[in-house]
Protein backbone atom coordinates (compact mmCIF):
# COMPACT_ATOMS: atom_id res chain seq x y z
CA UNK A 1 0.00 0.00 0.00
CA UNK A 2 2.98 2.26 0.58
CA UNK A 3 3.63 2.66 -3.12
CA UNK A 4 0.05 3.79 -3.72
CA UNK A 5 -0.06 6.43 -1.01
CA UNK A 6 3.44 7.59 -1.91
CA UNK A 7 2.41 7.93 -5.55
CA UNK A 8 -0.53 10.17 -4.64
CA UNK A 9 1.73 12.62 -2.86
CA UNK A 10 4.29 12.44 -5.65
CA UNK A 11 1.53 13.16 -8.17
CA UNK A 12 0.36 16.15 -6.19
CA UNK A 13 3.92 17.42 -5.95
CA UNK A 14 4.45 17.04 -9.68
CA UNK A 15 1.35 19.05 -10.48
CA UNK A 16 1.71 21.82 -7.92
CA UNK A 17 5.43 22.35 -8.36
CA UNK A 18 5.01 22.56 -12.12
CA UNK A 19 7.75 20.11 -12.92
CA UNK A 20 9.50 21.51 -15.98
CA UNK A 21 9.72 18.22 -17.83
CA UNK A 22 6.18 17.09 -17.04
CA UNK A 23 4.04 19.55 -18.93
CA UNK A 24 5.76 19.24 -22.32
CA UNK A 25 5.27 15.49 -22.01
CA UNK A 26 1.58 15.93 -21.21
CA UNK A 27 1.17 18.43 -24.04
CA UNK A 28 2.82 16.09 -26.51
CA UNK A 29 0.57 13.20 -25.44
CA UNK A 30 -2.50 15.33 -26.04
CA UNK A 31 -1.28 16.74 -29.34
CA UNK A 32 -0.27 13.38 -30.79
CA UNK A 33 -3.46 11.60 -29.76
CA UNK A 34 -5.74 14.50 -30.67
CA UNK A 35 -4.13 14.76 -34.10
CA UNK A 36 -4.50 11.02 -34.61
CA UNK A 37 -8.17 11.22 -33.65
CA UNK A 38 -8.79 14.19 -35.93
CA UNK A 39 -7.23 12.39 -38.89
CA UNK A 40 -8.81 9.10 -37.87
CA UNK A 41 -12.20 10.78 -37.66
CA UNK A 42 -11.93 12.05 -41.20
CA UNK A 43 -11.03 8.64 -42.59
CA UNK A 44 -12.95 6.48 -40.14
CA UNK A 45 -16.28 8.30 -40.27
CA UNK A 46 -16.23 8.28 -44.05
CA UNK A 47 -15.29 4.61 -44.16
CA UNK A 48 -17.94 3.68 -41.61
CA UNK A 49 -20.63 5.68 -43.39
CA UNK A 50 -19.71 4.14 -46.74
CA UNK A 51 -19.70 0.60 -45.36
CA UNK A 52 -23.14 1.15 -43.87
CA UNK A 53 -24.63 1.86 -47.30
CA UNK A 54 -22.37 0.14 -49.82
CA UNK A 55 -23.36 -3.23 -51.23
CA UNK A 56 -20.78 -5.30 -53.07
CA UNK A 57 -19.69 -8.93 -53.12
CA UNK A 58 -17.49 -9.54 -50.09
CA UNK A 59 -19.11 -6.76 -48.06
CA UNK A 60 -19.66 -9.05 -45.08
CA UNK A 61 -16.00 -10.11 -45.21
CA UNK A 62 -14.83 -6.49 -45.17
CA UNK A 63 -16.99 -5.76 -42.14
CA UNK A 64 -15.63 -8.90 -40.48
CA UNK A 65 -12.06 -7.78 -41.08
CA UNK A 66 -12.86 -4.32 -39.76
CA UNK A 67 -14.34 -5.70 -36.57
CA UNK A 68 -11.30 -7.96 -36.14
CA UNK A 69 -8.98 -4.97 -36.45
CA UNK A 70 -10.62 -3.56 -33.32
CA UNK A 71 -8.36 -5.95 -31.45
CA UNK A 72 -5.20 -4.84 -33.24
CA UNK A 73 -2.46 -4.78 -30.62
CA UNK A 74 -0.81 -1.38 -30.50
CA UNK A 75 2.65 -2.93 -30.45
CA UNK A 76 1.90 -4.71 -33.74
CA UNK A 77 0.83 -1.44 -35.32
CA UNK A 78 4.03 0.13 -34.02
CA UNK A 79 6.12 -2.62 -35.52
CA UNK A 80 4.44 -2.44 -38.92
CA UNK A 81 4.69 1.35 -39.08
CA UNK A 82 8.33 1.15 -37.96
CA UNK A 83 9.18 -1.23 -40.78
CA UNK A 84 7.39 1.05 -43.25
CA UNK A 85 9.07 4.23 -42.05
CA UNK A 86 12.53 2.78 -41.42
CA UNK A 87 15.22 4.07 -43.73
CA UNK A 88 15.47 0.53 -45.03
CA UNK A 89 11.74 0.44 -45.58
CA UNK A 90 9.54 1.66 -48.45
CA UNK A 91 8.76 5.05 -46.91
CA UNK A 92 12.17 5.69 -45.42
CA UNK A 93 12.78 8.68 -47.62
CA UNK A 94 10.03 10.54 -45.73
CA UNK A 95 12.45 10.66 -42.83
CA UNK A 96 9.77 10.84 -40.14
CA UNK A 97 10.82 7.90 -37.98
CA UNK A 98 11.49 8.86 -34.35
CA UNK A 99 9.45 12.05 -34.67
CA UNK A 100 5.97 12.92 -33.34
CA UNK A 101 4.68 12.70 -36.92
CA UNK A 102 5.41 8.99 -36.99
CA UNK A 103 3.57 8.64 -33.70
CA UNK A 104 0.54 10.40 -35.14
CA UNK A 105 0.63 8.07 -38.16
CA UNK A 106 0.77 4.97 -35.96
CA UNK A 107 -2.02 6.10 -33.66
CA UNK A 108 -4.20 7.12 -36.60
CA UNK A 109 -3.89 3.59 -37.99
CA UNK A 110 -4.82 2.31 -34.57
CA UNK A 111 -8.02 4.35 -34.19
CA UNK A 112 -9.41 4.25 -37.74
CA UNK A 113 -10.85 0.72 -37.41
CA UNK A 114 -12.42 1.66 -34.08
CA UNK A 115 -14.05 4.80 -35.42
CA UNK A 116 -15.14 3.11 -38.66
CA UNK A 117 -16.66 0.07 -37.00
CA UNK A 118 -18.62 2.13 -34.49
CA UNK A 119 -19.67 4.69 -37.08
CA UNK A 120 -20.90 1.93 -39.36
CA UNK A 121 -23.12 0.58 -36.62
CA UNK A 122 -24.38 4.08 -35.75
CA UNK A 123 -25.30 4.80 -39.34
CA UNK A 124 -26.89 1.39 -39.91
CA UNK A 125 -29.12 1.90 -36.88
CA UNK A 126 -30.03 5.44 -37.89
CA UNK A 127 -30.77 4.34 -41.46
CA UNK A 128 -33.40 1.96 -40.18
CA UNK A 129 -35.13 4.91 -38.61
CA UNK A 130 -34.76 7.57 -41.26
CA UNK A 131 -33.26 6.08 -44.41
CA UNK A 132 -36.55 5.98 -46.30
CA UNK A 133 -37.42 9.53 -45.48
CA UNK A 134 -34.02 10.89 -46.52
CA UNK A 135 -34.21 8.91 -49.75
CA UNK A 136 -37.70 10.29 -50.37
CA UNK A 137 -36.28 13.81 -49.95
CA UNK A 138 -33.71 13.08 -52.62
CA UNK A 139 -30.59 12.12 -50.70
CA UNK A 140 -28.37 9.45 -52.24
CA UNK A 141 -27.14 6.62 -50.02
CA UNK A 142 -23.76 8.01 -49.02
CA UNK A 143 -25.17 11.49 -48.46
CA UNK A 144 -27.89 9.98 -46.27
CA UNK A 145 -25.20 8.21 -44.25
CA UNK A 146 -23.23 11.43 -43.76
CA UNK A 147 -26.36 13.40 -42.83
CA UNK A 148 -27.19 10.75 -40.26
CA UNK A 149 -23.72 11.13 -38.77
CA UNK A 150 -24.35 14.84 -38.37
CA UNK A 151 -27.74 14.00 -36.92
CA UNK A 152 -26.23 11.57 -34.42
CA UNK A 153 -23.36 13.88 -33.59
CA UNK A 154 -23.45 13.30 -29.86
CA UNK A 155 -23.01 9.59 -30.37
CA UNK A 156 -20.24 10.34 -32.85
CA UNK A 157 -18.56 12.49 -30.22
CA UNK A 158 -18.64 9.58 -27.81
CA UNK A 159 -17.02 7.41 -30.49
CA UNK A 160 -14.26 9.98 -30.93
CA UNK A 161 -13.71 10.17 -27.19
CA UNK A 162 -13.40 6.40 -27.12
CA UNK A 163 -10.83 6.59 -29.89
CA UNK A 164 -8.96 9.33 -28.02
CA UNK A 165 -8.90 7.18 -24.91
CA UNK A 166 -7.46 4.28 -26.87
CA UNK A 167 -4.80 6.49 -28.42
CA UNK A 168 -3.68 8.43 -25.38
CA UNK A 169 -3.43 5.31 -23.25
CA UNK A 170 -1.41 3.15 -25.61
CA UNK A 171 2.32 2.71 -25.30
CA UNK A 172 3.30 -0.04 -27.76
CA UNK A 173 3.04 1.96 -30.96
CA UNK A 174 4.49 5.28 -29.80
CA UNK A 175 7.37 3.56 -28.07
CA UNK A 176 8.54 1.78 -31.20
CA UNK A 177 8.02 4.49 -33.80
CA UNK A 178 8.88 7.40 -31.50
CA UNK A 179 11.82 5.95 -29.62
CA UNK A 180 10.91 7.68 -26.36
CA UNK A 181 13.48 10.38 -27.03
CA UNK A 182 13.73 12.81 -24.13
CA UNK A 183 12.28 16.19 -25.07
CA UNK A 184 11.21 15.07 -28.53
CA UNK A 185 9.04 11.97 -28.56
CA UNK A 186 8.52 11.20 -24.90
CA UNK A 187 4.84 11.04 -24.00
CA UNK A 188 3.02 10.14 -20.80
CA UNK A 189 2.79 6.43 -21.45
CA UNK A 190 6.40 5.99 -22.55
CA UNK A 191 7.53 8.08 -19.57
CA UNK A 192 5.57 5.78 -17.29
CA UNK A 193 7.16 2.74 -18.92
CA UNK A 194 10.61 4.29 -18.47
CA UNK A 195 10.13 5.11 -14.80
CA UNK A 196 8.74 1.63 -14.18
CA UNK A 197 11.78 0.01 -15.73
CA UNK A 198 14.01 2.27 -13.65
CA UNK A 199 12.25 0.97 -10.58
CA UNK A 200 10.78 4.34 -9.63
CA UNK A 201 7.29 2.93 -9.11
CA UNK A 202 5.76 5.82 -7.13
CA UNK A 203 6.77 8.22 -9.90
CA UNK A 204 5.40 5.88 -12.56
CA UNK A 205 2.05 5.62 -10.78
CA UNK A 206 2.02 9.35 -10.18
CA UNK A 207 2.46 9.98 -13.90
CA UNK A 208 -0.40 7.58 -14.47
CA UNK A 209 -2.59 9.60 -12.13
CA UNK A 210 -1.65 12.80 -13.93
CA UNK A 211 -2.55 11.19 -17.26
CA UNK A 212 -5.95 10.12 -15.97
CA UNK A 213 -6.51 13.57 -14.51
CA UNK A 214 -5.72 15.29 -17.78
CA UNK A 215 -7.98 12.97 -19.77
CA UNK A 216 -10.67 13.52 -17.15
CA UNK A 217 -10.43 17.27 -17.77
CA UNK A 218 -10.76 16.72 -21.52
CA UNK A 219 -13.90 14.67 -20.95
CA UNK A 220 -15.28 17.35 -18.64
CA UNK A 221 -14.73 20.04 -21.26
CA UNK A 222 -16.39 17.93 -23.93
CA UNK A 223 -19.32 17.24 -21.62
CA UNK A 224 -19.82 20.96 -21.12
CA UNK A 225 -19.86 21.51 -24.87
CA UNK A 226 -22.41 18.72 -25.22
CA UNK A 227 -24.73 20.21 -22.67
CA UNK A 228 -24.43 23.74 -23.96
CA UNK A 229 -25.15 22.89 -27.58
CA UNK A 230 -27.53 20.05 -27.07
CA UNK A 231 -30.81 21.34 -25.66
CA UNK A 232 -33.34 18.74 -26.67
CA UNK A 233 -30.71 16.54 -28.28
CA UNK A 234 -30.65 13.11 -26.67
CA UNK A 235 -27.34 11.39 -25.97
CA UNK A 236 -28.01 8.21 -27.83
CA UNK A 237 -28.41 8.03 -31.56
CA UNK A 238 -31.77 6.78 -32.66
CA UNK A 239 -33.54 7.59 -29.43
CA UNK A 240 -37.09 8.38 -30.43
CA UNK A 241 -38.33 11.86 -29.52
Amino acid sequence: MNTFSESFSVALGLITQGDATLWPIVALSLRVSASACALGAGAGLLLGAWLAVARFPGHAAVVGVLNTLLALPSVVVGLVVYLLLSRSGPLGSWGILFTPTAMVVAQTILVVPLIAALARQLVADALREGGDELAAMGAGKLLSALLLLAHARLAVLTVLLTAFGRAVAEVGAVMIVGGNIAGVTRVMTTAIALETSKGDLPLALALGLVLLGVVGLVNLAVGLVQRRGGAGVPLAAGAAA
Partner: protein
Amino acid sequence: MDLNFLTLRRGALALLGTITLSAGLPVLAQGNFIVMASTTSTEQSGLFGHLLPAFKAATGTDVRVVALGTGQALDTARRGDADIVFVHDQAAEEKFVADGFGLKRLPVMYNDFVLIGPAADPAKARGKDIVAALQKVAASGAPFVSRGDKSGTHAAELRYWKTAGTDIATTKPAGYKECGCGMGPALNIAASTGAYVLADRGTWLNFKNRADLAVLVEGDNRLFNQYGVMVVNPAKHPHVKQALAQGFADWVVSPAGQASIAAYKIGGEQLFFPNAGK
Protein backbone atom coordinates in the same frame (compact mmCIF):
# COMPACT_ATOMS: atom_id res chain seq x y z
CA MET B 1 -23.71 24.65 -50.90
CA ASP B 2 -24.84 26.78 -48.03
CA LEU B 3 -25.55 23.84 -45.80
CA ASN B 4 -23.57 25.27 -42.95
CA PHE B 5 -24.06 22.64 -40.28
CA LEU B 6 -22.35 19.92 -42.23
CA THR B 7 -19.59 22.08 -43.66
CA LEU B 8 -19.02 23.77 -40.33
CA ARG B 9 -18.48 20.44 -38.68
CA ARG B 10 -16.17 19.15 -41.37
CA GLY B 11 -14.31 22.42 -41.52
CA ALA B 12 -13.76 22.55 -37.78
CA LEU B 13 -12.51 19.02 -37.82
CA ALA B 14 -10.10 19.73 -40.63
CA LEU B 15 -8.84 22.88 -38.97
CA LEU B 16 -8.31 21.11 -35.69
CA GLY B 17 -6.47 18.41 -37.49
CA THR B 18 -4.19 20.79 -39.30
CA ILE B 19 -3.36 22.78 -36.20
CA THR B 20 -2.67 19.84 -33.97
CA LEU B 21 -0.75 18.08 -36.69
CA SER B 22 1.45 21.03 -37.45
CA ALA B 23 1.93 21.62 -33.75
CA GLY B 24 3.08 18.05 -33.31
CA LEU B 25 5.37 18.29 -36.28
CA PRO B 26 8.71 19.72 -35.19
CA VAL B 27 11.58 19.70 -37.63
CA LEU B 28 11.55 16.85 -40.10
CA ALA B 29 14.72 14.98 -40.97
CA GLN B 30 16.57 18.17 -41.79
CA GLY B 31 17.83 20.12 -38.85
CA ASN B 32 20.74 20.42 -36.49
CA PHE B 33 20.41 17.07 -34.76
CA ILE B 34 21.61 13.50 -34.99
CA VAL B 35 19.88 10.31 -33.89
CA MET B 36 22.00 8.15 -31.62
CA ALA B 37 21.15 4.54 -30.93
CA SER B 38 22.32 3.64 -27.48
CA THR B 39 21.39 1.31 -24.65
CA THR B 40 18.75 1.51 -21.97
CA SER B 41 21.30 1.02 -19.22
CA THR B 42 23.34 3.99 -20.46
CA GLU B 43 20.24 6.17 -20.62
CA GLN B 44 18.97 5.03 -17.25
CA SER B 45 22.33 5.84 -15.68
CA GLY B 46 21.54 9.47 -16.36
CA LEU B 47 24.80 10.07 -18.25
CA PHE B 48 23.11 11.60 -21.27
CA GLY B 49 21.30 14.21 -19.22
CA HIS B 50 24.76 15.41 -18.19
CA LEU B 51 26.83 14.79 -21.31
CA LEU B 52 24.58 15.93 -24.14
CA PRO B 53 23.91 19.47 -22.90
CA ALA B 54 27.69 19.92 -22.67
CA PHE B 55 28.03 18.70 -26.26
CA LYS B 56 25.27 21.01 -27.42
CA ALA B 57 26.88 23.97 -25.71
CA ALA B 58 30.16 23.15 -27.44
CA THR B 59 28.83 22.50 -30.95
CA GLY B 60 25.16 23.53 -31.14
CA THR B 61 24.13 20.03 -32.22
CA ASP B 62 21.20 18.21 -30.59
CA VAL B 63 21.52 14.51 -29.95
CA ARG B 64 18.31 12.49 -29.96
CA VAL B 65 18.88 9.27 -28.07
CA VAL B 66 16.84 6.21 -28.88
CA ALA B 67 17.52 3.80 -26.04
CA LEU B 68 17.26 0.10 -26.83
CA GLY B 69 19.09 -3.13 -26.01
CA THR B 70 22.56 -3.36 -27.57
CA GLY B 71 21.44 -5.88 -30.18
CA GLN B 72 18.43 -3.74 -31.11
CA ALA B 73 20.54 -0.59 -31.17
CA LEU B 74 22.96 -2.12 -33.65
CA ASP B 75 20.06 -3.44 -35.76
CA THR B 76 18.53 0.01 -35.81
CA ALA B 77 21.81 1.42 -37.07
CA ARG B 78 22.13 -1.36 -39.64
CA ARG B 79 18.74 -0.29 -41.01
CA GLY B 80 19.98 3.25 -41.25
CA ASP B 81 17.58 4.64 -38.68
CA ALA B 82 20.39 6.14 -36.58
CA ASP B 83 23.38 8.31 -37.46
CA ILE B 84 25.66 7.06 -34.69
CA VAL B 85 25.84 4.14 -32.26
CA PHE B 86 27.06 4.20 -28.67
CA VAL B 87 26.98 0.76 -27.02
CA HIS B 88 29.07 -1.56 -24.87
CA ASP B 89 29.66 -4.90 -26.59
CA GLN B 90 33.10 -4.87 -28.20
CA ALA B 91 32.67 -8.10 -30.15
CA ALA B 92 29.36 -7.02 -31.65
CA GLU B 93 30.73 -3.57 -32.40
CA GLU B 94 33.74 -4.95 -34.24
CA LYS B 95 31.46 -7.15 -36.30
CA PHE B 96 29.33 -4.10 -37.08
CA VAL B 97 32.37 -2.32 -38.50
CA ALA B 98 33.64 -5.44 -40.26
CA ASP B 99 30.27 -5.84 -41.99
CA GLY B 100 30.66 -2.33 -43.33
CA PHE B 101 27.85 -0.69 -41.39
CA GLY B 102 30.09 1.49 -39.24
CA LEU B 103 33.11 3.64 -39.70
CA LYS B 104 35.99 3.27 -37.25
CA ARG B 105 35.18 2.13 -33.71
CA LEU B 106 36.47 4.50 -31.01
CA PRO B 107 36.73 3.36 -27.38
CA VAL B 108 35.24 6.00 -25.13
CA MET B 109 34.87 4.93 -21.52
CA TYR B 110 34.16 1.98 -19.28
CA ASN B 111 31.94 1.34 -16.35
CA ASP B 112 31.65 -1.77 -14.35
CA PHE B 113 29.19 -4.51 -13.64
CA VAL B 114 28.35 -5.57 -10.13
CA LEU B 115 26.75 -8.74 -8.81
CA ILE B 116 23.60 -7.80 -6.90
CA GLY B 117 21.87 -10.16 -4.52
CA PRO B 118 19.95 -10.45 -1.27
CA ALA B 119 21.87 -8.90 1.65
CA ALA B 120 21.54 -12.18 3.52
CA ASP B 121 23.54 -13.83 0.69
CA PRO B 122 22.34 -17.47 0.98
CA ALA B 123 24.82 -18.62 -1.72
CA LYS B 124 27.78 -16.99 0.09
CA ALA B 125 28.80 -15.23 -3.12
CA ARG B 126 30.16 -12.06 -1.50
CA GLY B 127 33.72 -11.14 -2.47
CA LYS B 128 35.94 -9.82 -5.22
CA ASP B 129 35.74 -12.73 -7.65
CA ILE B 130 32.87 -12.85 -10.06
CA VAL B 131 33.61 -16.32 -11.40
CA ALA B 132 33.83 -17.89 -7.97
CA ALA B 133 30.65 -16.10 -6.98
CA LEU B 134 28.72 -17.49 -9.96
CA GLN B 135 29.96 -20.99 -9.22
CA LYS B 136 28.63 -20.66 -5.67
CA VAL B 137 25.28 -19.36 -6.93
CA ALA B 138 24.97 -22.31 -9.33
CA ALA B 139 25.96 -24.79 -6.63
CA SER B 140 23.45 -23.46 -4.12
CA GLY B 141 20.58 -23.36 -6.62
CA ALA B 142 19.70 -19.84 -5.46
CA PRO B 143 17.44 -17.83 -7.81
CA PHE B 144 19.28 -15.85 -10.51
CA VAL B 145 17.64 -13.38 -12.90
CA SER B 146 19.12 -12.97 -16.39
CA ARG B 147 18.07 -10.21 -18.78
CA GLY B 148 18.08 -12.74 -21.61
CA ASP B 149 17.67 -9.92 -24.20
CA LYS B 150 20.94 -10.06 -26.17
CA SER B 151 22.04 -6.81 -24.56
CA GLY B 152 25.65 -5.97 -23.75
CA THR B 153 24.95 -6.83 -20.12
CA HIS B 154 23.45 -10.15 -21.13
CA ALA B 155 26.44 -10.95 -23.36
CA ALA B 156 28.82 -10.17 -20.49
CA GLU B 157 26.80 -12.33 -18.11
CA LEU B 158 27.00 -15.29 -20.48
CA ARG B 159 30.76 -14.83 -20.77
CA TYR B 160 31.20 -14.94 -16.97
CA TRP B 161 29.06 -18.08 -16.73
CA LYS B 162 31.20 -19.72 -19.37
CA THR B 163 34.39 -18.87 -17.49
CA ALA B 164 32.72 -20.32 -14.39
CA GLY B 165 32.21 -23.56 -16.29
CA THR B 166 28.51 -23.28 -17.18
CA ASP B 167 27.31 -23.02 -20.76
CA ILE B 168 23.92 -21.41 -20.31
CA ALA B 169 22.83 -22.41 -23.79
CA THR B 170 22.98 -26.08 -22.83
CA THR B 171 22.58 -26.28 -19.04
CA LYS B 172 20.94 -23.72 -16.85
CA PRO B 173 21.54 -23.83 -13.11
CA ALA B 174 18.53 -24.51 -10.93
CA GLY B 175 16.93 -21.17 -10.10
CA TYR B 176 18.14 -19.49 -13.33
CA LYS B 177 15.38 -17.42 -14.95
CA GLU B 178 15.41 -15.29 -18.09
CA CYS B 179 13.06 -12.34 -18.28
CA GLY B 180 13.81 -11.00 -21.77
CA CYS B 181 13.75 -7.52 -20.27
CA GLY B 182 15.79 -4.45 -19.51
CA MET B 183 18.04 -3.84 -16.53
CA GLY B 184 15.45 -2.03 -14.45
CA PRO B 185 12.75 -4.69 -14.78
CA ALA B 186 15.32 -7.41 -14.07
CA LEU B 187 16.27 -5.62 -10.85
CA ASN B 188 12.58 -5.29 -10.02
CA ILE B 189 12.16 -9.03 -10.36
CA ALA B 190 15.30 -9.69 -8.27
CA ALA B 191 14.04 -7.34 -5.58
CA SER B 192 10.71 -9.07 -5.27
CA THR B 193 12.03 -12.64 -5.46
CA GLY B 194 15.29 -12.24 -3.51
CA ALA B 195 17.35 -13.29 -6.52
CA TYR B 196 20.91 -12.64 -7.71
CA VAL B 197 21.40 -10.50 -10.80
CA LEU B 198 24.29 -9.03 -12.77
CA ALA B 199 23.78 -5.30 -13.24
CA ASP B 200 25.69 -2.28 -14.50
CA ARG B 201 26.59 0.11 -11.72
CA GLY B 202 24.84 3.07 -13.34
CA THR B 203 21.39 1.47 -13.40
CA TRP B 204 21.95 0.12 -9.88
CA LEU B 205 22.83 3.51 -8.45
CA ASN B 206 19.67 5.02 -10.00
CA PHE B 207 17.46 2.12 -9.04
CA LYS B 208 14.95 3.03 -6.35
CA ASN B 209 13.13 -0.19 -5.63
CA ARG B 210 15.95 -2.01 -3.83
CA ALA B 211 14.05 -3.96 -1.15
CA ASP B 212 16.90 -5.82 0.60
CA LEU B 213 19.24 -6.10 -2.38
CA ALA B 214 22.92 -5.12 -1.99
CA VAL B 215 26.15 -5.11 -4.00
CA LEU B 216 27.87 -8.46 -3.31
CA VAL B 217 30.71 -8.60 -5.85
CA GLU B 218 32.62 -5.64 -7.32
CA GLY B 219 36.07 -4.60 -8.38
CA ASP B 220 36.95 -7.72 -10.37
CA ASN B 221 38.86 -6.62 -13.50
CA ARG B 222 36.69 -8.83 -15.60
CA LEU B 223 33.65 -6.79 -14.58
CA PHE B 224 34.73 -3.78 -16.56
CA ASN B 225 32.34 -2.87 -19.38
CA GLN B 226 33.88 -1.08 -22.35
CA TYR B 227 31.90 1.46 -24.37
CA GLY B 228 32.55 2.26 -28.02
CA VAL B 229 31.16 4.84 -30.44
CA MET B 230 30.76 4.33 -34.20
CA VAL B 231 29.46 6.63 -36.89
CA VAL B 232 27.11 4.78 -39.25
CA ASN B 233 28.70 4.29 -42.66
CA PRO B 234 27.29 6.72 -45.24
CA ALA B 235 28.34 4.30 -47.96
CA LYS B 236 25.51 2.04 -46.79
CA HIS B 237 23.10 4.83 -45.87
CA PRO B 238 23.75 8.04 -47.76
CA HIS B 239 21.31 10.11 -45.70
CA VAL B 240 23.40 9.70 -42.52
CA LYS B 241 24.49 13.06 -41.13
CA GLN B 242 28.11 12.13 -41.22
CA ALA B 243 29.62 15.50 -40.38
CA LEU B 244 27.43 16.08 -37.33
CA ALA B 245 27.81 12.49 -36.13
CA GLN B 246 31.57 12.62 -36.55
CA GLY B 247 31.42 15.83 -34.55
CA PHE B 248 30.03 13.88 -31.62
CA ALA B 249 32.51 11.01 -31.95
CA ASP B 250 35.41 13.46 -32.07
CA TRP B 251 34.13 15.48 -29.12
CA VAL B 252 33.44 12.55 -26.82
CA VAL B 253 37.01 11.25 -27.16
CA SER B 254 38.48 14.74 -26.87
CA PRO B 255 39.77 16.05 -23.54
CA ALA B 256 36.61 18.14 -23.13
CA GLY B 257 34.30 15.18 -23.69
CA GLN B 258 36.35 12.83 -21.55
CA ALA B 259 36.38 15.38 -18.72
CA SER B 260 32.61 15.69 -18.93
CA ILE B 261 32.26 11.93 -18.62
CA ALA B 262 34.51 11.82 -15.57
CA ALA B 263 32.58 14.66 -13.97
CA TYR B 264 29.31 12.71 -13.93
CA LYS B 265 28.66 11.44 -10.43
CA ILE B 266 25.76 9.92 -8.54
CA GLY B 267 25.87 10.50 -4.81
CA GLY B 268 29.47 11.62 -5.14
CA GLU B 269 30.43 8.41 -6.90
CA GLN B 270 31.90 8.45 -10.42
CA LEU B 271 30.14 6.05 -12.72
CA PHE B 272 32.06 6.06 -15.98
CA PHE B 273 35.81 6.08 -16.47
CA PRO B 274 37.05 7.72 -19.69
CA ASN B 275 39.66 5.71 -21.60
CA ALA B 276 39.70 6.98 -25.13
CA GLY B 277 42.89 6.39 -27.02
CA LYS B 278 44.14 3.94 -24.41
